[in-house]
């Protein structure tokens, strides 16, 4: 059996203030294979964003083991991670194309090739023709598309998304979910997607990790057995209801 792309074993994270310890993550273990779209779902304070930051190499972890990549295919956290946040966080003073190029600039990648790539990515996320616009001229959903293109510009192996559609209205959110699935299939990236939307998690994920708060730990991790090629009709699929009920139950909401 080939090695998984991401492997987490009993990962623990503690935040310390002067006289207090706060356990942000008690224990998380999971294996993610290349090309999967894993959704981390759970209530606020369950440590899902913290886990994302550990994967991004922004926070050290306490106990356990985090391995990403392998000896044959080493993983460089600065070059191989793309991040998308709840807010698009586009730079107001840069045009869309220049915004998408930011990671390439920071990494010092060849600009001419990156520019071509950025244009291609903007086309893929449906923003052809908006390269020279400023962020404020775009809607919230379009800004988030640009943020996704920015996360892909340096061709990272792992995309980390922290509630990327949480600030969008319900209709735009549905649309962006469909778009994300298309982008994921076209780009063939491994994506870890944090959300507190239970339906969203099942709709998007090839796998779902359910996390609970107090203590913050992983309560469940399962494969989502739904057709790869999903559209909104999937929500009426009997498995879909079963998965969402399973999560509701774990989060004590049934």
């Amino acid at each position, binding site marked *: 059996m080939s090695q998984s792309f991401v492997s987490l074993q009993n990962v623990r994270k503690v935040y310390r203030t002067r006289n207090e310890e706060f356990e942000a993550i008690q224990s998380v273990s999971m294996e993610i294979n290349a090309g999967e779209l894993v959704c981390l779902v759970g209530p606020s304070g369950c440590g899902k964003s913290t886990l994302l*930051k550990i994967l*991004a*190499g*922004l926070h050290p972890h306490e106990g356990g083991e985090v391995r990403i990549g392998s000896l044959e295919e080493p993983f460089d*956290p*600065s*070059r191989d*991670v793309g*991040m998308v*946040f*709840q*807010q698009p*966080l586009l*730079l*107001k*003073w840069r045009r869309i194309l220049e915004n998408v190029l*930011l*990671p390439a*600039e*920071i*990494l010092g990648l060849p600009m001419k090739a990156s520019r071509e790539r950025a244009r291609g990515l903007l086309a893929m996320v449906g923003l052809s023709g908006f390269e020279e616009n*400023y*962020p*404020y001229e775009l809607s919230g959903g379009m800004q988030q598309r640009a943020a996704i293109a920015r996360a892909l510009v*340096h061709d990272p192996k792992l995309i980390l998304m*922290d509630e990327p559609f949480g600030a969008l209205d319900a209709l735009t959110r549905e649309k962006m979910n469909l778009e994300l699935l298309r982008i994921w299939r076209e780009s063939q990236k491994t994506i870890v997607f944090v959300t507190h939307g239970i339906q969203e998690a099942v709709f998007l994920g090839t796998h779902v990790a359910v996390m609970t708060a107090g203590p913050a730990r992983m309560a469940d991790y399962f494969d989502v057995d739904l057709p790869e090629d999903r559209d909104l009709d999937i929500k009426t699929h009997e498995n879909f209801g079963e998965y969402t009920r399973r999560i509701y139950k774990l989060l004590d909401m049934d």
Partner: protein
Amino acid sequence: MSVDTWRKIIVASVVHVAFIAFWWLSVIVSDIPEYILPTPWLALQTLGTENYNWVFHFAATAQEIFGGYILALVVGVAFAAVFTWSRRLDETLMPLLVTLNMIPKVAMAPLFIVWLRFGIETNIVITFTICFFPILLNTARGLREVEPDLLDLVRSLNGSRWQLFIKIQLPGALPYVFSGMKVATVLAVAGAIVGEFIQSDRGLGWFMLVTQEALNTDAMVMALLLVTLIGVILYGAVILLERTFVVQDARIE
């Protein structure tokens, strides 16, 4: 330009003309003697008086205002930049600077005259002192305001401190720099004139003191109008620069 912009320009012009008309009419109707308040026309006529040397005094005051202002801009932004680079320096010096900001800068003018030599440079220093703080404090605030997630984004790419500064902080702080600059324009004019009141042998403020002795109120009013004009030119230049360099959405109104 859009219809809305033209409308605003027209409204602004009408209001200005109306104000001057109101002044003019008030003087005529109420029969105020001209040594108390001359009509705008009388004030304007003093421009023809050759030995008033208008161009010379206008240039002197403009030099003080622009000189002190530009100096404050350069030094203020530089200080703010240094503070964002060194957290320790920021923590050590910022409280002191906030206190120093409380000193009425105008009240330091007599001291400057003791410390520095008589002349236009001293007034530049006074103008600088008064403009420095709003620019420094605004810029420092702008440089500090970086979205934490944006910081994570740069850090996740292993971006350097310099890249963060030059690509995110500095352009992000530009609207704040302009915010401080706008406040400083009014202060700059006041600073230069007070300096001239206290020590000078030229400039529009000095000229007002001289003409006051002869009760040439019309010339005093004209000098005041010209000082205001310098202020308006400075403010206009700042607005123009802001429109050129700051994206509409990022401007602080």
